[in-house]
Every structure is written in structure tokens, then in C-alpha cells.
């Protein structure tokens, strides 16, 4: 069965800490995505990657960066965590081609609390 794995289900961090959220997929997908989910706002795209070492900003990239050194792994980095980054973070992947037509496969999410 296809799988997208996020390394942590829950994380608690302090303001100012550098935070790494890891995501691994086993489907050999080209496209990988990081979303943020907040009540009443749905999912908002932070960053996406369509190939190794390639990345593009989504709708809310401020305060975040990403790394994709290997095809199967896509990391989200909070350089200096702030309380307004407390949220649920969802990783997703899809196969090549138009990502707007392809089914997204999601991880189980990381609930991050920044204190």
C-alpha cells in the first residue's frame, strides 16, 4: 500500500527554536507538498517541490523553508518558530504530470505547538 510518512504526530517547541518536519514517501512520486491546516481556513500551501532540489513557494511561504535532497524525502523547516506557526502540518505527494489532475496522497499530519 502506498505511504506518506510524517516523522512526528505531535511536536512541542519553544519560540525561536529551529524546527524540522520530515516527510517520506515510498511511491517514487515527483511532486511533494507541504500544507498548513487551520480551523476555518482549510489547507493552505506553504511550499511544493516537483523534483529533487527543486522548490517553489506556495501561498504562505513566509517563515518557512524546505529541503529536498532525495526524491523520497521533503523537509519543512521553521527557521525561528513563532507562536503563530502553531498548526497542523500536512505533507502530500503526487505522481508526475499536472498536479492539478493527479490524486494527492497525504501523511497523517504533524500537530505543532509553539510555546
Amino acid at each position, binding site marked *: 500500500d502506498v505511504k506518506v510518512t510524517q516523522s512526528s504526530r505531535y511536536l512541542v517547541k519553544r519560540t525561536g527554536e529551529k524546527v524540522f518536519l520530515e516527510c517520506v514517501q515510498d511511491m517514487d512520486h515527483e511532486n511533494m507538498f507541504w500544507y498548513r491546516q487551520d480551523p*476555518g481556513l*482549510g489547507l493552505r*500551501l506553504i511550499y511544493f517541490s516537483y523534483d529533487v532540489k527543486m522548490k517553489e513557494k506556495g*501561498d504562505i511561504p513566509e517563515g518557512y523553508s524546505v529541503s529536498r535532497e532525495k526524491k523520497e524525502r521533503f523537509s519543512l523547516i521553521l527557521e525561528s518558530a513563532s507562536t503563530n506557526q502553531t498548526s497542523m502540518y500536512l505533507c502530500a505527494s503526487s505522481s508526475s504530470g499536472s498536479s492539478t489532475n493527479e*490524486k494527492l496522497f*497525504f501523511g497523517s499530519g504533524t500537530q505543532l505547538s509553539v510555546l
Partner: protein
Amino acid sequence: AQTVTQSQPEMSVQEAETVTLSCTYDTSESNYYLFWYKQPPSRQMILVIRQEAYKQQNATENRFSVNFQKAAKSFSLKISDSQLGDTAMYFCAFPGNTGKLIFGQGTTLQVKP
């Protein structure tokens, strides 16, 4: 700006009954896909159903079907014979002009025994 609107934050339905979740969107594109995703309490989002905008026929997947009204830019999800396992948050989504999916705010559905 392109938007997706789910006007029902919460809904409930009795087991075995039928429920319809609404979604409207705004786009100037003519050919696109529309999606409904389900997020159960386990939090892992899964695709429920997908509709191609150029197809007249509404998509159906077992107990799930859509009512797609292209002119009205409406894309509702109908769940027939609701089951307790259908309890989840449901998101509709469509591709924005940046080429990436835009998600609605979500509708929390509670199926009651």
C-alpha cells in the same frame, strides 16, 4: 482571487440517511478537475471522488456521488446510506490559476447512530 467556499462548517446525519455537502468555487478556467477529500479522526486525508469539468456525467463512487453544476460553479457531494465510518471532515478542492489545488474551509460531518 480564485476561491473555494464550503458554507456548512458542521453537519450531522442519522446513520443510513442521505446527506449533501455543498461547495462553490470561482475560476475562469474551462477545463479542470474538482476533488472531494475526506479527513477522518485519524487525520490521514484520502480522496473520495474526482470530477472532470468537461464531462457532463456526474462522478459516482459507490455511496458517494457529486452534483456538478458547471455554469453555477457548484460541486456538491452526496453521501447515501451514511455510515458511522463516514464521520470526518470533508474538503472540496480545485486547481487555482497557480496550477496548485485550492482547498475549501472544510465541513465536519457527524454520522449519528
